[in-house]
């Protein structure tokens, strides 16, 4: 039996398909004191490179996983424990953890959620869920994104909630046709997924254009929206980086797309070759080019934002708790527009750009959970 004062640091699950992660470097060393939120290690998966933050405070007594080796998701990579825990107890825990790492991924680890689909007005809409119990959360990505935009958040939230992420029309593996490209078509997909889930009410989390979509759902059907967390939502001011939007829609090659994608993040180093390749693979699917250009017309009026999300929010009547989260270094939609989200609790996160759910997932998760708590 291991000493319950030993707290394992485990390989996170970033994205439903992740089975293995690799530590590219340790930020901490044995003996270091860490606080919640401190960087522990840089981790690379097939899809993305990220930094693991500490979920518990204490002393790092043992580093278990070596740099460069594959570790199954949830395998123990380090041990945090107070000084009173004996070396013998720690070494025994390390042995157990090593056995898990050395065994690799079990064959039956199909893992995660199955991709599901719903037919919404003749369009195939894809979504995937995680979590067994609790309220339903539906995550709504932004322009050019997909359900994987939430890869750092969906599993952690699933500890307490049933968490679903969808692909909006024109995105991911959903139907590529967006009709007239209005927010209404996208909002239909959100309610269609809620219907397919049999969820009368859900907490909506929307990023960027997905924020405006979540708002449209709330205005149309406030009874179905238990709370709203808007992350850098579109439509709360005129200013927007129109060059980014057009650049994303028009980019045909990796060389064109990479600098565009870089504008999404405060630290452009987060734009890996894999990320750009995945975006290009999406953009090259039949029908995507047309849908991205159709949606440009919904988002832009000249070089300004077309939508008026503040009016939509007012129409939603203030019945549900609203939180707005913004990265202070957002280069797509300025963080100052958070001020226009009337009646919302505001979090402006330092060191994050337009993708705080990828850049500072722990803080975004806390904001979402706090919003849900307010809904009671």
């Amino acid at each position, binding site marked *: 039996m291991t000493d319950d004062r030993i707290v394992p640091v485990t390989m996170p699950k970033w994205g439903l398909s992740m089975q293995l992660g690799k530590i590219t470097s340790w930020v901490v060393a044995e003996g270091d004191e860490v606080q919640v939120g401190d960087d522990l290690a840089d981790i690379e998966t097939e899809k993305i490179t990220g930094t693991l933050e500490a979920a518990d405070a204490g002393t790092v007594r043992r580093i278990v996983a070596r740099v460069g080796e594959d570790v199954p998701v949830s395998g123990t990579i380090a041990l945090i424990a107070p000084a009173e825990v004996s070396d013998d107890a720690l070494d025994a825990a390390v042995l157990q953890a090593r056995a898990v790492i050395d065994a690799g991924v079990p064959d039956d680890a199909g893992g995660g959620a199955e991709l599901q689909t719903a037919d919404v007005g003749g369009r195939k809409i894809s979504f995937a869920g995680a979590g067994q119990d609790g309220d339903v959360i539906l995550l709504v990505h932004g322009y050019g994104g997909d359900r994987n935009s939430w890869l750092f958040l969906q599993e952690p939230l699933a500890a307490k909630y049933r968490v679903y992420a969808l692909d909006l029309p024109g995105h991911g593996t959903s139907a*590529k046709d967006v009709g007239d490209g209005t927010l209404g078509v996208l909002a239909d997909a959100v309610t269609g997924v809620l219907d397919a889930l049999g969820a009368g009410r859900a907490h909506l989390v929307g990023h960027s254009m997905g924020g405006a979509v979540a708002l449209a759902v709330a205005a149309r059907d406030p009874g179905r929206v238990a709370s709203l967390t808007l992350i850098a939502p579109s439509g709360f001011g005129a200013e927007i980086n129109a060059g980014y939007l057009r650049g994303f829609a028009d980019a045909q090659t990796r060389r064109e797309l990479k600098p565009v994608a870089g504008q999404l993040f405060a630290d452009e180093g987060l734009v890996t*070759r894999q990320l750009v390749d995945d975006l290009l693979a999406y953009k090259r*699917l039949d029908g995507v080019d047309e849908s991205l250009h159709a949606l440009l017309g919904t988002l832009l009026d000249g070089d300004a934002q077309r939508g008026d999300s503040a009016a939509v929010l007012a129409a939603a009547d203030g019945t549900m708790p609203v939180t707005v989260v913004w990265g202070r270094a957002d280069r797509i939609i300025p963080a100052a527009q958070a001020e226009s989200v009337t009646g919302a609790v505001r979090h402006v996160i330092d060191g994050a750009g337009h993708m705080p759910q990828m850049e500072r997932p722990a803080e975004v998760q806390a904001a979402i959970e706090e919003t849900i708590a307010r809904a009671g």
Partner: protein
Amino acid sequence: MARNITYREALNEALTQEMERDETVIVMGEDNAGGAGAPGEDDAWGGVLGVTKGLYHKFPGRVLDTPISESAFIGAAIGAATAGMRPVAELMFVDFMGVCFDQIYNQAAKFRYMFGGKAVTPVVIRTMYGAGLRAAAQHSQCLYPLFTHIPGLKVVMPSTPYDAKGMMIQAIRDNDPVMFFEHKALYDLSGPVPEESYVLPFGEANVVREGGDVTIVTLGRMVHTSLDAAGQLAAAGVQCEVIDLRTTSPLDEDTVLESVEGTGRLVVVDEAHPRCNIATDISALVARKAFGSLQAPIEMVTAPHTPVPFSNALEDIYIPDAQRVVNAVKTVTGWSR
């Protein structure tokens, strides 16, 4: 939604989806439908290695089984292309191109130019290449350098199932003649491929592995050999950047040059014979345009200047393997003036 399918299935899916999308797309070639020696059954083979299997019944009248007369049916495909069809003609083995070379290099490749840009020739000529199947000197060659030499032809050789599907769809939609090279040893290779249709534009190399010490430029089956070598070298502390050219015409010069400017060292791995092949072409490009970045002479790993041997043992030695790539990388990293 991407799922794992083989290179063969990826090509079949591309053909199926394009035939569904565009009724001017037709398939023609030897054994595409009936199959020599088949007991009267239509669609017995689906081409010599089964790529077109199933199309014959799905698209009645649009899968044509041709006589063993390459000059006739390749010429017919090119003619049909000029008249509004989008034929995909299968010429079994690239080794047989000799008998229809006039149709390809002096007709199809020239029409756009000769008719002042008013004619297009949207034909795809599929063909198998490469050694490794014990098929000896007349069924194992890598003749893509011959076609790369000729302006007016696009020359493409996917190395993965994903690339195979996207490049086949691009080839069919392309208005120029495309020589589509499929390595026999890759047909059973499995990999993730989206169910949806998508295109992979020509002239965009793929950096399949990043690394700062040595650039390995390669193509086709040799991409996998090079990745194997790069994996072994990484364990020894040498980081290779592996570039899959994907297409030799058009050629993505920028990706090659940018990489060599970063690493200063180049190894080119090409399964073709060593004279006037893709390795010499890339070497000349880098020597001319990135000379100042080079910290060592360029190394080439190729097959020898001989026919592909009939002997199994000799064929195995003939095909460049990962050990030869490792040795070449060690030569360029260990070189000193």
